């Protein structure tokens, strides 16, 4: 699974403080720890409270790039912050995110093209998140066809059917699984799918258990990537084992270790 580490996010108090105080060590440690734990990419989000989001994003990217040569996911709703970030990323970056909102696509797709970025596409439009499998799949299709029209390779796209917290919208949990399956039928080769996994467990008592259980279920439905906490060891073990059981790689007694050597 393509794993995007979620820990460098201004929603976390320690990260918000580090951004404010320009404390590089905190950010670097978090970057390295996540990469060593198996993250293929790192999500960067300056958080809602920061005064100068553009400056903060540039600082985050530069700080991380000083220690880790890894794909960066620029997590912002502000187009100017997005472009400033994409401009200084040394590797192919991820636009996190676009949606089926026309204005979003009009602004961000040209950036994806210009910087050859990967894109996370949320199944969401002006009316919000559809409450049905068909509704979400339709929006996935809207994003996919728009990219194809703009001659962007569908391989650069991760479609996110948006999982909601189990204690807010429990009925959506199975529905998102089914959506993953439906999205995979949209084209050949199938589009890739991704979830912001931790959202499913917001405000639950045992977040780790809910996260890893849903991760395993989503993988069985064909999930390709997730934004998650790679420092959650039990979650990582469950993800690796699920992929093993899906015959994604060859078993051996030390398969967990072997996976990390990949």
């Amino acid at each position, binding site marked *: 699974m393509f794993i995007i580490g979620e820990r460098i996010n201004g929603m976390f108090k320690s990260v918000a403080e580090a951004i404010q105080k320009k404390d590089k060590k905190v950010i670097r440690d978090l970057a390295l720890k996540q990469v060593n734990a198996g993250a293929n990419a790192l999500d960067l989000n300056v958080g809602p409270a920061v005064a100068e989001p553009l400056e903060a994003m540039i600082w985050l990217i530069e700080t991380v790039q000083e220690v880790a040569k890894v794909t960066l996911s620029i997590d912002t709703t502000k187009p100017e912050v997005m472009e400033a970030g994409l401009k200084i990323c040394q590797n192919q970056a991820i636009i996190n995110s676009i949606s089926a909102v026309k204005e979003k696509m009009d602004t961000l797709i040209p950036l994806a093209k210009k910087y050859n970025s990967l894109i996370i596409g949320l199944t969401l439009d002006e009316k919000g998140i559809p409450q049905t499998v068909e509704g979400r799949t339709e929006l996935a299709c809207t994003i996919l066809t728009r990219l194809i029209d703009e001659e962007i390779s569908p391989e650069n796209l991760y479609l996110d059917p948006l999982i909601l917290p189990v204690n807010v919208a429990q009925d959506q949990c199975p529905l998102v699984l089914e959506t993953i399956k439906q999205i995979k039928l949209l084209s050949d080769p199938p589009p890739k799918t991704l979830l912001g996994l931790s959202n499913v467990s917001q405000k639950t008592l045992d977040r780790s258990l809910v996260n890893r259980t849903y991760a395993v279920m989503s993988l069985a439905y064909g999930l390709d990537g997730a934004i998650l906490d790679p420092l959650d060891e039990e979650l990582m073990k469950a993800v690796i084992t699920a992929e093993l059981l899906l015959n994604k*790689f*060859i*078993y*051996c*007694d*030390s398969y967990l*270790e*072997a996976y990390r*050597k*990949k």
Partner: protein
Amino acid sequence: MEKVLEKWTSKINEMVIGATKEEGGTRSKKVHIGGETTLPFLHFEGEIPYPPVVALEVWDIPPEEWSFISEDLKEVVNDPLLWAKKVEEWGADLLCFRLASAHPEKDDTSPEKCAEKVKKILETVKLPLIILGCGQPDKDGEILLKVSEVAKGENCLLGMAAKDNYKTVVAAATYGGHSIIAETPLDINLEKQLNILITDLGFLAERIIAHPTTGGLGYGFEYCYSIMERTRIAGLQGDKMMAIPIINLVAQETWKHKEAKVNENEAPQWGVLNKRAIAWETTCAVGYLQSGADILVLAHPQSLINVKKAISELMIKT
């Protein structure tokens, strides 16, 4: 019409065997293997930078259990140095020297004596060497420690490193700067596990070649073939512990079987032994080429000619 091509994300490790004067050794050439970015001979899908290579066996005692070889090569089998010279003359890419006498049930030759034998071979021929013990894991560990020392700097391939002796063999190879053959029973999971254990010791995956056990033609060939194929596919898909070259000991699995022993008087329906036995070794080897063999170890010089010809034809890009 658009060509439908497989896209692989990874490549098989490259390995060099043998060190020339430039690298501090005394071999006349180096042999490169590995580096494939596609399945065997699919030149239109990826790179096959080096053709598979062929080694011929030389034993330190006559290979009595290989009656055909003992008879057909009777001029040389009693004299390992003469045998080695012939192997070089016949055009083998590598020489595979087998210290068969060291087996506790044979002469139980001491590790020191084994090392002397290797030293003489190194002085007599200039081909890169594969050095095999006697097949008894503990004894092989002891032998290889000594052998590694006399062959230091020659960048040989030492075997076998198995579940029960890999630590010693890795220590030996590390000391002398050699690569190793990791041998497992016919089981892809055990193959991967052994590679992990070996690399956990700090030994580079790039210095390992796998021997997933060679099933002889008619004696498990297809099991080995499919394990090699799965290994290669996993390696090309990015599994680092599977992205290693493969060696097949074809002679070992040919000459002990009845098809390569029984003559035409005893089994007239099988045809002339001479022709049949060589065809048996050749066919087995050529089969393994198709499942990803990087080194084939044979015994008969005519099989060498046949297999080299097959390789050169398969390496032509169409």
